[in-house]
């Protein structure tokens, strides 16, 4: 809310500078977002006196004027307005002046005659809405003075929190200032002279939805004359950010800003039979609102109607047909209290939210309906004349008494962690208009309100009852008063104290394994990325990552269940409208962005979530995704470049398994093809029933690379599930006792058909190695002479040993013989010697 300081001063004395006041209000919870110098954007605009006004020789619509600006020679200024005459004081923009919006005024020539500046309208200065005539200043306005000195103001931009609708007005903020400074509040003097016939002769109100419209106060002014409101009113409204419209509409807006009470003024003549009906819209009813939009009303919309149909959407916007126009003389004033929820829903439904509806949404003080109606009537009479009919139409004249809230001062101190005496608490509350008295026996404490009410008996605890002013609708439970005490005392006085209460039980951090993985991968040369969870639905088509659940090779415990994409029903854009089911596409986006920056060597990883709807419920899984492309090791003066390939991805997974104390992973070919290279894709898992690693590593199919418009030739992408990524898993390394007897190494060169996989050869060796075989490691892969074209040779180093003895040559030979036979019979291999 924009608060012009000069206007605020009408209700409370302010000795502080605008910046000091801003800080004090901020510390009181009325956060001042900024202090604007209103009129600061007028530069070189001064007060001038018109000396002569003559017709322009070559243009009928223009005048030639001479203007005394207090010093120097009179200026010659050409002006197009018709409301000027010699002797008037007017705002003069000198050559070089800057007007609101950055408009610069220079010496010009209009129809062959030089103009040394410009006379300004109220609109050009953003003071009033009058764009036709020049702003005529009072005769006593000091000549030559800078206009910003005379009319400039400090405007505070106050962020009023949603629970403090009462402070969304000048009087409300004046109350807060008074709480800070101790100054007294000057309430606006509201009095009206009723001279006309009884209001009941003019206006009848029928509320058919008393739940949604709890009070309707009506007033009637006859014989008003519509015109602009006084300049000072227009200036205040402009400074507060509202555009002046006409005296009657301005009166309504002025009261909204002054008291926080939205009201509406109708052209009384357009209200058929002088009867206003507050009801729900009927199916098919339509209304053209003030913004000239014809709206189809839905049956849950609360409307203001007359006998012939809707004339306004209650609390939101009036109808065009009953708008106040220049010809209007009969004014119907509506000052009502509407249900906040209904207003909020309706505002959302029609995408119509106004200053008025924002205030209705926050709830309205019941009393203000009466006061607001009187104030609008008072200002209408003052600014537009006419006669006010006697009395008010009022559908609920009984106004509730102040609420009484009991609280225990000791509890307030305990919550705040500061010892604040009962007397001090009572004094502090008095500063925000909350009177207190000691509670009588039997008083109960509202510890918690709806939707989880809790009322307790304070027992012997000292209890005070707060009598809450009717405008403080936010004060409801005991702790609300604690906040009020803290607020007025000053949050900055809160003592700092480190907790000395009991510690919680140990809990392993779910971030632990992720942290190890991050550190390990960064150490291995990969860069971590964090990408959007919301992606384009097209990603799935461009990179149809297979479902783990349908893959028997993967352990069920880690494989994500298949499910459906979770779709955002109100997305900001289609690019980010579904939750990703896999992370690969996100990394391709990162690659694409970096390729556009000229990067071709990219090794990245992300620990992120994938999402799916399974059996109607949302599910989330944390996964590690890796993308490698370009050079793993870029060329340097001492090293040739080496491109990333699938082995790097496998090596990374193997490194992680070692780091996390997991069994080595094993690989199963995945020959499905698109989106993967049919010969370079695999499933990763663990043998021996361990289920700590599962996922896919693949070089992308060239068509998939093309679908992402990438320059890269080969892109390796992996998505892996690891035990401990989602739920903290303890890392535990089990130590083998060091061998007491020497181990024996034997190398085997195994020649197999090209179609045999390394995994087959290795598992065959392990299967036939017997109890003496401790470890097997592939150390060479050879193709070429003297091997046949469809053969390859895999060289393994076998380590054999026994716990209780040194192996003898014959023992080792027979174990190796066993392996050789197994290789021959199982996979048709023979050994190269």
């Amino acid at each position, binding site marked *: 809310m924009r608060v012009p300081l000069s206007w605020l001063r009408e209700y409370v004395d302010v000795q502080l500078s605008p910046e000091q006041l801003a800080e004090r209000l901020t510390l009181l919870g009325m956060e001042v977002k*900024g202090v604007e110098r209103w009129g600061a954007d007028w530069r070189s605009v001064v007060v001038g006196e018109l000396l002569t006004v003559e017709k322009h020789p070559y243009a009928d619509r223009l005048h030639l004027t001479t203007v005394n600006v207090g010093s120097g020679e009179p200026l010659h200024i050409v002006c197009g307005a018709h409301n000027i005459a010699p002797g008037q004081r007017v705002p003069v923009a000198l050559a070089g002046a800057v007007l609101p919006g950055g408009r610069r005024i220079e010496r010009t020539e209009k129809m062959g005659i030089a103009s040394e500046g410009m006379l300004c309208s109220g609109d050009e200065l953003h003071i009033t809405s009058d764009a036709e005539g020049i702003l005529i200043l009072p005769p006593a306005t000091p000549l030559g003075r800078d206009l910003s000195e005379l009319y400039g103001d400090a405007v505070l931009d106050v962020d009023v929190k949603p*629970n403090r*609708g009462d402070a969304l007005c000048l009087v409300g903020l004046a109350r807060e200032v008074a709480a800070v400074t101790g100054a007294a509040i000057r309430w606006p003097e509201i009095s009206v002279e009723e001279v006309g016939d009884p209001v009941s002769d003019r206006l009848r109100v029928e509320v058919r939805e008393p739940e949604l419209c709890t009070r309707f106060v009506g007033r009637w002014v006859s014989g008003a004359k519509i015109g602009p409101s006084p300049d000072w009113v227009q200036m205040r409204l402009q400074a507060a950010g509202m555009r002046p419209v006409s005296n009657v509409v301005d009166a309504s807006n002025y009261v909204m800003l002054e008291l926080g009470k939205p009201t509406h003024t109708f052209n009384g003549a357009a209200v058929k039979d002088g009867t206003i009906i507050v009801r729900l819209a009927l199916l098919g009813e339509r209304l053209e609102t003030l913004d000239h939009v014809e709206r189809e009303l839905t049956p849950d919309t609360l409307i203001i109607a007359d006998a012939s149909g809707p004339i306004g959407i209650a609390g939101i916007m009036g109808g065009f047909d009953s708008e106040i126009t220049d010809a209007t003389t009969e004014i119907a004033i509506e000052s009502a209290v509407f249900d906040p929820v209904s207003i909020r829903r309706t505002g959302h439904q029609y995408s119509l939210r106004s200053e008025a509806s924002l205030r209705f949404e926050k709830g309205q003080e019941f009393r203000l309906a009466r006061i607001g109606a009187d104030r609008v009537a008072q200002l209408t009479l003052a600014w537009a004349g006419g006669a006010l009919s006697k009395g008010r139409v009022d559908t609920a004249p009984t106004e509730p008494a102040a609420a009484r809230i009991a609280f225990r001062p000791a509890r307030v101190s305990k919550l*705040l962690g500061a010892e604040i005496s009962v007397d001090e608490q009572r004094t502090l509350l008095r500063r925000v208009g909350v009177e207190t008295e000691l509670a009588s026996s039997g008083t109960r404490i509202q510890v918690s309100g709806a939707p989880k009410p*809790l009322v307790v008996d304070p027992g012997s605890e000292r209890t005070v009852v707060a009598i809450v002013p009717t405008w403080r609708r936010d004060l409801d439970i005991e702790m609300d008063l604690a906040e009020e005490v803290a607020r007025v005392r000053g949050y900055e006085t809160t003592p700092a104290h480190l907790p000395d209460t009991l510690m919680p039980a140990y809990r392993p951090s779910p971030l632990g394994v992720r942290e190890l993985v991050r550190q390990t991968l960064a150490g291995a040369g990969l860069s971590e990325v*964090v990408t*959007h*969870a919301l992606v384009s639905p097209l990603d799935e088509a461009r990179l149809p990552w297979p479902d783990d659940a349908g893959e028997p090779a993967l352990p069920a415990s880690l494989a994500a269940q298949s499910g459906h994409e979770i779709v955002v029903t109100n997305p900001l854009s289609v690019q980010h409208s579904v939750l990703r089911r896999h992370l690969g596409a996100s990394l391709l986006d990162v690659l694409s962005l970096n390729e556009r920056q000229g990067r071709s060597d990219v090794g990245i990883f992300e620990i992120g979530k994938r999402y799916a709807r399974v059996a109607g419920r949302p599910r989330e899984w944390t996964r590690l995704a890796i993308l490698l492309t370009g050079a*793993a090791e870029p060329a340097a003066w*001492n090293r040739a470049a080496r491109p990333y390939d699938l082995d790097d991805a496998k090596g990374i997974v193997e490194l992680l398994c070692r780091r996390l104390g997991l069994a080595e992973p094993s690989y199963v070919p995945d020959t499905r093809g698109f989106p993967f290279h049919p010969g370079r894709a695999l499933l990763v898992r663990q043998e021996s029933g361990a289920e700590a690693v599962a996922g896919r590593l693949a070089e992308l199919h060239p068509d998939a690379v093309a679908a992402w418009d990438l320059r890269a030739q080969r892109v390796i992408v992996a998505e892996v599930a690891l035990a401990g990524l989602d739920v903290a898993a303890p890392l535990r390394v089990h130590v083998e006792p060091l061998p007491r007897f020497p181990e024996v190494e034997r190398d085997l060169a195994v020649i197999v058909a090209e179609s045999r996989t390394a995994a087959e050869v290795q598992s065959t060796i392990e299967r036939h190695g017997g109890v003496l075989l401790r470890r097997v490691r592939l150390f060479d892969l050879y193709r070429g002479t003297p091997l046949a074209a469809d053969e390859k040779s895999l060289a393994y180093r076998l380590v054999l040993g026994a716990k209780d003895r040194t192996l003898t040559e014959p023992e080792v030979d027979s174990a190796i013989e066993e392996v050789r036979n197994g290789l021959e019979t199982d996979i048709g291999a023979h050994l190269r010697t």
Partner: protein
Amino acid sequence: MDFESLSGDLHRLRDLALAEIAKAADPAALDQLQIQYLGKKGDLTAVLRGIGALPPEDRPRVGAVANEIGEAVKTALAERGSELRSVVQAQRLVAEKADVTLPGRTVPRGTLHPIPETVAAITEVFGQFGFVVYEGPEVEDDLTNFQMLNIAPDHPARDLWDTLYVDIPGHLLRTHTSPGQIRVMQSTRPPIRALLPGRCFRYEAVDASHGFEFFQVEGLMVDEGTSMADLKGLLDEFAHALFGPRKTRFRPGYYPFTEPSVAFDVECVVCGGVGCPACSKTGWMTILGAGMVHPVVLQYGGIDPERYQGFAFGMGVERIANLRHAVPDLRYYLENDLRFLEQFR
């Protein structure tokens, strides 16, 4: 042959050997000389063959001389060998001279993203005060995200959280990490000290200071006497840990799920409190929101507000990271331009 002549032969042999050893140019020549003089078929052996012609009483004397001479030749060989090796080594070292000013062989080193790094920094500080980490779902239900946090369906404060909804009835993308408060309270009993980091979503157009996906860390502490002073004490420690010794202040804030609610300000990290554009000339920067847990929220968590009280706080990870690293644009984080990420080596 007599003793004198044999002894004379031996001494001549010695002189010859020592002279040749002294002239040897490389270890190979020394090896040759060793064989020539001391080998089984060497000159010394050849001379000693004449020993059989001596009278038996002279033989030990010749043996002693031969040993002495043999030792002398061995010593000379060893000394010359050592001499030659150090020459060769010195030559090798000279030949091996490298340009040590050339750059090293790069060890690949990746980078860690500032979001998880900042989360780690935050959890590290609070971890020292006994806070343990929990996580809640990102696809949250409306009940936990709003209603149990005292935000009814038509609460005016709902405007503070523009929400993205999903096609699962009653569910949405969590707008903050605060629903984690409910989940922690429902899953454990006081004393509670919990941290909840995670991704959040809002219906918000993207610009330099807004995004529809962002990260928060929520904190929750509940016990019998946990007060606003404890909150201030902990947040002071946190601010000092991350931003150095700076002034801090509490001022009133507003959240439906805390009462009283707090905004926590730290002396501007740019201007140090003098006032600058970064702090809107106030000298202060708000780094998080906090407050005492509302009794409605405690009750939804299954905790009796008459017995227990506590505080909660929530901070934007990007906000903290921006202040620590002077990141000018929020979009940098999820864009993942390596030129940005590689500055965090």
